[in-house]
């Protein structure tokens, strides 16, 4: 083992990968992050930056508890990052909204929340259905078509691009080796260590953490793991910088600390990150103007299009390999919300060499087989 170049090789340099790498480095591990190049399909450059709790956990109640754990850890996590890098990721938790533009939408919303919170074993967290006048007290700029919404005080947001930069800055400061243009082609375990083949040469490490997003689907089977994914494309519309007008993030619309307004969140079955469906952007814009009519004349300066990291059931996968001890998967859609967990909870488990079943057992990919049989 001592012959290995690194204690842990983290595959993937996106938010999940660098958050995990940072946590590992804090545990004293020698860490390398293997990443793709500038044109990598990268969800971290196109995410919506919510640290979001409401609606999480329908179908897997333990996911709600896992999300709340991260949400609660986020403040301290952001503070530590600031102390280490001088960069403020602007984490705020003012509570967030899901707004409805029709009675039907509001009813659908209420139903989802009822089903979510009626699940046995779900941790109790408050999400309140509000009528129009209740919403208007907190969001005075809503348009006449807004009939109401749901509000959860635990919801927040962050500047996710700055988080991305901050984590990269922090891992560098902690001596983590970051190797871009090192796409991992194969992984084998030999002589007690993992050998990761890249076009730039072989990297050896005692352990390996797969944090490569949708590419985990390809990599996991190499080390006796699995990551069934169903990537989908999301588009975001971004406006010019505006003076602050919106304190609370809405699940489809938020104002960043820099002043820009981000508008989402679409889902299309596509794996082409370069493409853009104009009609989808138009729908996002149309709904944004109906939610907040004062945005009508605001300029759109960019659109983003990115491929969501999405497991087949939408919930995270944290696993350790039975056949290749020392190999782990860290795979999820909510790389921002769960960043604090990945850095502060999952990374220490990997450093110790074993996942803590009391925390992450429900998120093993074995659940897909249970369902298949059942």
């Amino acid at each position, binding site marked *: 083992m001592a012959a290995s170049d690194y204690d842990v090789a983290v595959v993937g340099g996106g938010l999940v990968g660098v958050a995990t790498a940072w946590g590992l480095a804090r545990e004293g591990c020698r860490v390398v992050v293997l990443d793709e190049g500038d044109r990598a399909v990268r969800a971290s450059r196109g995410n919506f930056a919510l640290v979001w709790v409401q609606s999480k956990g329908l179908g897997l109640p333990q996911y709600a508890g896992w999300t709340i754990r991260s949400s609660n850890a986020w403040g301290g996590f952001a503070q530590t990052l600031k102390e280490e890098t001088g960069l403020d990721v602007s984490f705020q938790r003012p509570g967030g909204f899901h707004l409805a533009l029709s009675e039907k939408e509001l009813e659908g919303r209420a139903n989802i929340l009822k089903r979510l919170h009626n699940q046995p074993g779900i941790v109790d967290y408050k999400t309140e259905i509000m009528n129009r006048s209740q919403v208007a007290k907190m969001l005075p700029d809503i348009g006449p078509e807004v009939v109401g919404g749901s509000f959860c005080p635990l919801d927040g947001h962050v500047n996710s691009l700055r988080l991305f930069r901050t984590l990269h800055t922090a891992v560098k400061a902690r001596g983590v080796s970051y190797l871009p243009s090192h796409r991992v082609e194969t992984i084998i375990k030999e002589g007690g260590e993992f050998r990761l083949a890249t076009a730039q040469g072989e990297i050896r490490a005692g352990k390996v953490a797969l944090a490569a997003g949708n590419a985990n689907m390809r990599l996991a089977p190499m080390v006796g793991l699995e990551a069934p994914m169903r990537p989908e494309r999301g588009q975001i519309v971004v406006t010019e910088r505006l003076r602050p007008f919106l304190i609370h993030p809405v699940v489809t619309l938020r104002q960043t600390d820099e002043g820009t307004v981000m508008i989402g969140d679409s889902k299309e079955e596509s794996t082409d990150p370069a493409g853009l469906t104009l009609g989808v952007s*138009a*729908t996002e814009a*149309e709904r944004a103007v109906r939610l907040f009519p004062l945005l009508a004349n605001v300029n*759109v300066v960019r659109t983003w299009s990115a491929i969501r990291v999405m497991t087949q059931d939408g919930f995270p996968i944290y696993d350790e390999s039975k056949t290749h001890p020392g190999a782990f998967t860290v795979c999820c859609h909510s790389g921002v919300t769960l960043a604090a967990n990945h850095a502060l909870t999952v990374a220490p488990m990997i450093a110790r060499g074993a996942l803590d079943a009391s925390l992450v057992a429900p998120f093993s990919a074995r659940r897909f087989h249970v369902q298949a049989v059942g």
Partner: protein
Amino acid sequence: MTKASDLASSYDLVVIGGGPAGLAAAALAARAGLSTVLFDENPGVGGQIYRAITSSPVKDRAILGVDFWVGAELAAEAKASGALIVNGATVWSLDPTRLVGVSIAGQARLIQASRVIIATGALERPFPIPGWTLPGVMSAGGAQTALKAQGLVPSGRTVMAGGGPLLWLLAAQILRAGGKLDAILDTTPRTNWLRAFAHLPDFVLSPYFSKGLKLLREVRAKVRVIRVDRLEAVGDDKLREVVYGAAGGERRMPADLLLLHQGIVPNVNLAIAAGVTHAWNERQLSFEPVLDENFNSSVHGIAVAGDGAGIAGGTAAAERGRIAAVAAVRALRPEASMPDTQAIRQRLQREEMGRVFLDWLNRPADSFRRPKGDTIVCRCEEVTAGQVRYTANMGCEGPNQMKAFLRCGMGPCQGRLCGLTVTELIAAERRTTPAEVGYFRLRPPVKPITLAELASLPIAETERKAVER
């Protein structure tokens, strides 16, 4: 005035840009019977080289020179051709299916084109020196536009700095208009002659030769020209003085206006957003679309003509526009009679002959393309050269990751004034080439449109379902 609602839902040919390439292309195609619309963002046609050709208040033809006024013929031809010419029309989207997003007076439309000719021309190469964002510092092209279109001549203490044909042309035009120049600070390295020399014979035979010499003599007779290797604009709220390094020493010169120019580069934003493959041109130090002999791009039905296809000048641009238009007509109306493209190609070749020499001779110095320290690179987001260099060394390999980390290129100009600088800085820090580093990924809208305009576009049921859940 044509309104967005007046437009047909489809045209045989959509030409984007009303400079020489666009005007020549539209005229030829419309005459050959293609339903043709030309969209141009400016209040009048002419592009930048023939700016305000139909409306310039500068009536003394000697001031702007004969090469300017030849544009009048192009504009007249296009007007008479039957092509619909729409000014004040901003094209903000183009996709590989040739769906064109255009905004006119705050109203957006999507227009289907059978063929598209992108003729968006050139813009000035970024000139990132310390203080270049100060009021009182302007691009030479900007000052030339104000002279052509509004008859504005610099007054007060005026300094020009940089290099390239446009700088000298503007100097001559300002002088002819009765303006005064305190100095021209020439930033072109003397060593450029070494690379340029081999191409001198071609240049001597080209139309640029005698014109260029005459222009240099005209300007040098009236203005002090100083060769400099360092340049800085200094001031608090606006430009107060120009600081420059020459012959080993530092000098200061009080100034009210500093006009900067170090050449022009293709305006690539729309073509890149449309998915057109681009490649690095090491001689011209810029990205340009990869095109065939008819200026067709890698995207079927989309051609790029004019300086947007690589810098070759206004006369060449018109010939390129004609060749691209002939190809469009042949594809859609093979029965139409077409001019002899052999003759057009010969004229184009003659125009391009002297270009290689000019490119090498006027190649801007590395230090003026790759700034250091606190010099602002991205004007919109106020990102400095030092930040870009530091982040490149952190392992940030390319402009797209750089954009995510530092926001450079994320402002309203969408990288037009920093893209090349960012690419070159990353290449320098990582000891690789700009070709290897690549350019910003661009998506529509390539020019800002309002949320209301975006919201007004047609939406299919599946597209609505992708958002409403």
